[in-house]
């Protein structure tokens, strides 16, 4: 079981679904939902001096299509600020309903992105992930 998981999505129903599904399979001790990329960035900003902090998530589920700051923009900032080197225990999984094959290719460019999943997240997938991580 993971310690801490972030879900970043602008859609509250998706967030609710994620949380419920993860709870069913005992995916993580703590599931924190964030409704925008900015929220997540400011979290990492404040914790950039203490990367070993227990508040730092092990895994982030990131949506791509969000208003204001899209998932791509979030990834760019994360990469440019070197967060992938600071928060070494944090992995990111893109969770999107996109069908554009270019998006999957593009996601491979970011070293912290470990997977690209299609919505909705199911219990089966979560169980598989759990066994791998």
């Amino acid at each position: 079981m993971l310690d801490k998981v972030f879900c970043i999505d602008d859609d509250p129903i998706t967030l609710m679904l994620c949380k419920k599904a993860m709870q069913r399979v005992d995916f993580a001790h703590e599931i924190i939902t964030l409704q925008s990329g900015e929220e997540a960035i400011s979290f990492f900003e404040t914790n950039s001096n203490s990367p070993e902090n227990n508040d730092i998530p092990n895994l982030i589920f990131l949506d791509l299509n969000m208003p204001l700051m899209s998932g791509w923009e979030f990834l760019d900032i994360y990469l440019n600020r070197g967060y992938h080197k600071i928060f070494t225990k944090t992995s990111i999984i893109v969770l999107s309903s996109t069908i554009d094959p270019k998006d999957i290719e593009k996601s491979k460019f970011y070293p912290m992105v470990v997977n690209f999943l299609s919505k909705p997240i199911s219990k089966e997938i979560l169980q598989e992930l759990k066994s791998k991580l």
Partner: protein
Amino acid sequence: MKNNSNKITLIYFVILITVVFLTQKIFTSYSFSSETNSIITTKEIVIIVLSIVLFRYFLYVNEKHNEIVLNKLKKSNQDIIESKERYDIVAKATSDTIWDWKIDNDAFIWNKGIQSVFGYKKEEVGKGSNWWFERIHPEDSLKMSVRLYSFLDYKTDKWQDEYRFQCADGSYKYVIDKGFLVKNKDGKIVRMIGSIQDVTKQKEEEQRLRLLETVITQTNDSVMICSTQLNENSMPNILFVNSAFENMTGYKTEESIGMSLDILFGEKSDNQHTEELKKCIREYQVCEVETICYKKNGSVFWINFSMIPVTNKDGEHSHWISIQRDVTEVKEKEKEREQLIRELTKNNNDLKQFSYITSHNLRAPLSNLTGLLNLIDDIPIENPELKELIDGFSTSTHLLNDTINDLVKAIVIKDNPSIKKEKVPIKEVFENVFNQLNFMISLHKPILKIELEEEYISNINKSYLESIFLNLMTNSIKYRSTTTQLKITISSKIENDELIISFKDNGIGIDLEKNKDKIFGLYQRFHNHPDSKGLGLYLVKSQVESMGGTITVDSKVGKGTTFTLNFKKQ
């Protein structure tokens, strides 16, 4: 000669003496004169001597005359020999065939040329003029004989004609025949002598050149010949233009000749191209440019202009040949086409973007719906009516999800021409497909017959191929016959460098007469089956085509369906 005269003179003297002596004797025996003892008198001696001198003189004169005649004869004899020699030399040197026609008795003599040039054997050659006439080409003989007889009538000295003369092997040679007449003292024609020259080669060359010339004069491309002399602007002068040039530029031949190539160019002409042209001209290089040119009336047009240097026998550059084509229409069409392609590409991209966004916006809430239903599955529902409602809600949602997923797949296939291609064992593909359909296969127990002549399929996308066979297999099971056991035959073979995979079942079949055009269409359904959405075959076709293959179908209602897939083998 002298000796001969002296001999004759001596004989004459002896005879004379003998005669005088004998007459003396006769006279003495009959007359009995007193002077019987005198033998020959002085007077007689004088007469004899005088007679001898006279005789000797006559002989001398005669001799002189004979000598002159002899010399004349010798000379004319020499002339004849020389003339004969000259004739022989000329006859040898010329390739002409010479004939001699004695008109009175129609005797016709040929020299050796009739054998060497026309291939006749000595014994084949006829002795009369008929033999000659018979060998003249039927198309030429009438004209030729009319001209020959009118020549004979007018009695002019020379005659010349061109006709085809038949060789021994039956073929014809083009000849020029020149003849002259020989007349006797009274002006009557007695002989005609002619010489036949074989001009076949020249004639053929002439015809070939005439044919080549028609290419230049008749072609729709404008043709120009220029000299190698350049004007102050480094442009060559025009020596010849064909009628296509006149039509294209509006310049008449007589106006163009002597002008320089400059007349075609103007300020709108591409400077870079005219400079390139000049450079090629300086260096005697082949050159081809496309630029704007000017007609005589000042209007502009696009020209495709090529120039080729031509050398003479000695390999020196003697002329330029230039071929030009009006490409205005092509240029305009090209522009239109480019514009059209730009617009289409833009539209296509817009549409693609639109479809991605739409599908994304559809998929986002739909994925929530499926996610919610998945969670509900785990919660026991007591109220039977609520359960029924939720089941209906669930079925509809999953159907909607499937449809959207299929559509999304179709969009991705259409938009992804550069998919990963590899060499795949066909057997492995089927194994995967059978595994995925394990449940259906164990339920309906179809007879599967697989005959693979070719084990591998190269240059293929594995997941597309799996999806194709999954679709075909599912169709076969869905649309199986209710009365006979389902049998599926799958085979592969190579034919004409193509890999052919055939997929055959004995199911209910499709009425192709009605549905020929629709079978691979989007949302086309041919049976009233609850699971049928009309997408499967559309996907199959899209996938096959995206890998460069083709798919065809053959089917009979109640008998079964065969799908044939063709892939280029590499």
